[in-house]
């Protein structure tokens, strides 16, 4: 228990008769990337929504860094250290890339309710935001409105928003979708670098990226975790090959 930053037990959610997540038990160790894979509609994104608190679960418990966060709402969970990206890019479209990142820095730096201080004159926030943009290779696009960025750049920006929060855990929902080869490579290197500070629960369909990154992999199907193990264990698991990976892998 001590080496687990995130511990989810028995998490279930039904929409009518349909069980989207069924007694999910999954955990995340310090220094770890734990990938969650499964076919479309298996319940991966709903699980993320339950962890961040935007979808209320029916039963189960969520413990983050020894603290039971089951009854906290989505904003409270974000405040205490859960940072996420969305399956479909969710950014502030009319804000520049720089302003998107600054927005993400506000709560941590306790600046949200600064009413009359100019954001442009806050050198610390601007410099932190630029560093993050540099890290996600978007510094040259800092003044471009987020809505004008390419799909791949928006995915990077979303990761930047998550990074800015300096959270206890990252929940990344298909962060590499739509990225070109160099973008994926950058993201893989970035994730390897940041996992020591904040471990990552990663949902991803790019299996090359998953196998390159994940310390552990869990497979979800019809809302249930059907297998958990190392990359090699998952690769050689017959059930997993049946439900998701296919025999050609």
């Amino acid at each position, binding site marked *: 228990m001590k080496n687990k930053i995130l511990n989810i037990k028995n998490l279930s959610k039904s929409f009518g008769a349909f069980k989207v997540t069924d007694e999910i038990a999954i955990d995340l160790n310090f220094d770890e990337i734990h990938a969650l894979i499964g076919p479309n509609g298996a319940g991966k994104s709903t699980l993320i929504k339950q962890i*961040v608190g*935007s979808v209320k679960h029916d039963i189960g418990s969520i413990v983050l860094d020894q603290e039971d966060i089951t009854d906290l709402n*989505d*904003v409270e969970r*974000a*405040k205490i250290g859960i*940072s*996420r990206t*969305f399956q479909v890019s*969710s*950014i*502030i*479209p*009319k*804000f520049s890339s720089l*302003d998107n990142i*600054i*927005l*993400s820095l*506000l*709560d*941590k730096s306790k*600046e*949200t*309710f*600064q*009413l*009359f*201080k*100019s*954001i*442009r004159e*806050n050198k610390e*926030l601007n410099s932190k935001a630029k560093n993050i943009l540099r890290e996600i290779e978007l510094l040259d696009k800092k003044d471009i409105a987020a809505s004008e960025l390419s799909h791949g750049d928006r995915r990077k920006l979303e990761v930047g*928003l998550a990074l*800015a*929060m300096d959270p206890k855990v990252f929940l990344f929902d298909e962060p590499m979708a739509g990225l070109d080869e160099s973008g994926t490579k950058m993201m893989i290197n970035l994730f390897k670098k940041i996992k020591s500070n904040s471990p990552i629960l990663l949902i991803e369909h790019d299996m090359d990226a998953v196998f390159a990154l994940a310390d552990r992999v869990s497979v979800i199907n019809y809302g249930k975790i059907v297998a958990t193990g190392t990359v090699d264990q998952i690769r050689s698991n017959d059930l997993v090959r049946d439900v998701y990976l296919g025999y050609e892998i």
Partner: protein
Amino acid sequence: MIIEKFFNKWIMFFLLLIPTCGVIFDEPYFITLATKVVILGIAGVGLNLALGYCGLISLGHAAFFGIGGYITGILSFHALNDEVLFSWPLVVSGSSEMLIIWPIAILVSAFFSFIIGLLSLRTSGVYFIMITLAFAQMLYFFSISWPNYGGEDGLSIYMRNSFPMLNTMDPLTFYIISLFWFLFSIFISLKLINSPFGMSFQAIKQNEERVKSVGIETFKVKLLVFVISGTITGLAGSLYTDLNRFVSPTVLDWQTSGEIMVFVILGGMARLYGPLVGAAFFIALEQTLGSYTENWQFWLGLILILVILYARSGILGLFDKKLKHEK
């Protein structure tokens, strides 16, 4: 943004030119009209913060406009009649001093904005529109049924409230007082929209779920914007009562909320001077078309439809685009 700043300078020039012309040609009516535009502009600047910058579609801002107006009217009424306002737990009399009336109007408007916001902001979309409308209508019917202060007939205060060393009955002096408050409300808005808090509420308008996901308490942010917005509109209501030396339930009617919203949409949402331009356009239409037909609002409706269909950034947005293309 640079082009908008260029327009703002022209707007400031006109704000000074019109009353000057009124003085030169001895037409105090123009000064009074300009004062009305400026005061309605303040109400619009208030609503613009909530509607234009934060996306809160309030159909209840007449409540704050009316509260500011009635506070001014009631305090003044008691002062002029030399009656105490209430005698328990303290003896409080009325006042005809603007420097006393304004802070009270501001505080009471802020208090009501807080209460109405606290309850309304638990909803969103059409429910928010309806609940804010319902609050304003409650106050409207309350004012009608309050015979002490004129009920349906309203309350006349005969003398404009006073300001030390100034003759507030002089149209130009009162215009300058109103202009000061307009510029102050613009200053506050400008400071807010460029602050971290402003960044938060402008982001909420675009993507509230994302703002929540970065740990920002969107309810608190929206509530504070709503309170500031309602307070500025309440101040406008206070000045409006002094301008007319009269306040009636009409200021609390849903039509007033609609008109303030029209100023914002016509002039340009989320544009600092948009509400003033919208109010000026509205008053100009009222004065010109209104002299031909009492149903001049038909044409206003037509213009509003055209603005919404073809110029969503309002009148300022139209010029903005035109200049951008010419450049």
